[in-house]
């Protein structure tokens, strides 16, 4: 018999009767099927604070069936493999009532492995904390004007007097022509999706300190009146993440992106969060 992590799978099933805790099984009436590849099927019946285990091929009347392979089953039982990891790796599946996973540890004492008997684990200290740091961002005259525009539901861009490009959020100076930007233009507020990034890193929002839900969409919107690379960066309504299409211009080939419109916050304070996010306009 092959042993995994120093334990044979038969040891687990054969010791179930002695590891059973009747006090944990009060009010429990459940049938759990084990379908273990290359090993076979077992049916565990728990009712009236008693358990029975039988070898059978018929698991159709079980509340839940655990489908896995020998190694994963032993690993999960002795705690050498994380159940969630095995589930994500599709090596461990529960068909039917998922609640049995939480129930089983209550019903049985842990199978003691030799390793654990010998060595007493030292208590290791881990501290989890969240520090909150207050900060202030100074807008300056140019960004201040832009943010005040958002308060009035307007998106303002600043125009370079030499090359004519629009920048939003605005910069005091056009970094290409090295001249001071002067003219303000109202753009958008609707536009076309040009860039979408799926973000899986739960970055904290520097204005609220709250961690963002993932995945979220960071988007570049080409607002009306803007052209080429003059995209405006913001967030996408998370519900629309999988329903949008990016637009692109490749030489003569033009693919139109999804039309988006901003959703304005009710309480606007003159910050970038005055736009909650963009959503599909049609």
């Amino acid at each position, binding site marked *: 018999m092959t042993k995994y992590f120093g334990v044979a799978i038969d040891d687990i099933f054969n010791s179930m009767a002695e590891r059973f805790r009747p006090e944990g099984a009060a009010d429990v009436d459940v049938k759990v099927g084990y379908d273990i590849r290359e090993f076979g099927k077992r049916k565990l019946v728990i009712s009236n604070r008693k358990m029975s285990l039988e070898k059978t091929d018929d698991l159709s009347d079980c509340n839940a069936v655990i489908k896995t392979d020998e190694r994963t089953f032993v690993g999960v039982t002795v705690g050498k493999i994380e159940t969630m990891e095995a589930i994500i790796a599709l090596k461990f599946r529960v068909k039917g009532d998922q609640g049995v996973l939480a129930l089983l540890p209550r019903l049985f004492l842990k199978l003691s492995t030799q390793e654990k008997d010998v060595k007493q684990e030292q208590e*290791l200290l881990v501290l989890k904390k969240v520090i909150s740091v207050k900060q202030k961002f100074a807008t300056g005259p140019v960004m201040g*004007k832009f943010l005040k525009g958002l308060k009035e539901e307007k998106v303002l861009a600043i125009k370079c007097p030499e090359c004519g490009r629009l920048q939003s959020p605005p910069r005091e100076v056009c970094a290409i022509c090295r001249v001071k930007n002067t003219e303000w233009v109202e753009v958008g507020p609707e536009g076309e999706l040009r860039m979408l990034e799926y973000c899986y890193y739960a970055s904290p929002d520097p*204005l609220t300190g709250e961690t963002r839900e993932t995945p979220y969409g960071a988007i570049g919107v080409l607002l009306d009146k803007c052209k080429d690379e003059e995209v405006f960066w913001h967030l996408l309504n998370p519900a629309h993440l999988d329903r949008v299409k990016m637009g692109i211009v490749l030489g003569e080939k033009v693919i139109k992106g999804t039309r988006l419109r901003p959703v304005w916050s009710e309480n606007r304070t003159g910050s970038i969060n005055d736009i909650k996010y963009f959503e599909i306009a049609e």
Partner: protein
Amino acid sequence: MRSNAMKKEKDFDINNCYTISGKLALPYTYFAGRTGSTFITHIRDNKKIMGVRCNHCNKVFIPPRQTCEKCLSMISDNWVELENQGEILNYTVVRYDDNHLPRKAPFILAMIKLGKADTPVIHIVEGISINDVKEGLKVKAVFAEKTTNTILDIDHFEPV
């Protein structure tokens, strides 16, 4: 030069200048390590302050560390119980308030050399006015009633 700067200041439209309040949350996980965990759990459970001895250099370190800083040999198993009393080698008075500080200002932070130890440990000193604290003052540890699993399981030191 100066007039030039003033002229620029005049052009500068401050009507649109304001500040936006932000808040940065920094989630972190601190792992005390094997040696650090033993140190803290001894304070918490036994009210004992432990150091580690380097048998080669004949020095006792606190806070405990895994290797001797002088000869680099492994010393993390040579635990020595220290006295709960010691003397102030040096001190400072913290005079500003901030979220991360353990007390309201002003309070005393001192380097305290405990009996049997060769290195000082930094901790809060209470029970004496900031004007009366001096080098060489004998202090003893007061243990916290509620554990936080940190060095603050010694709540503070106070004059003997």
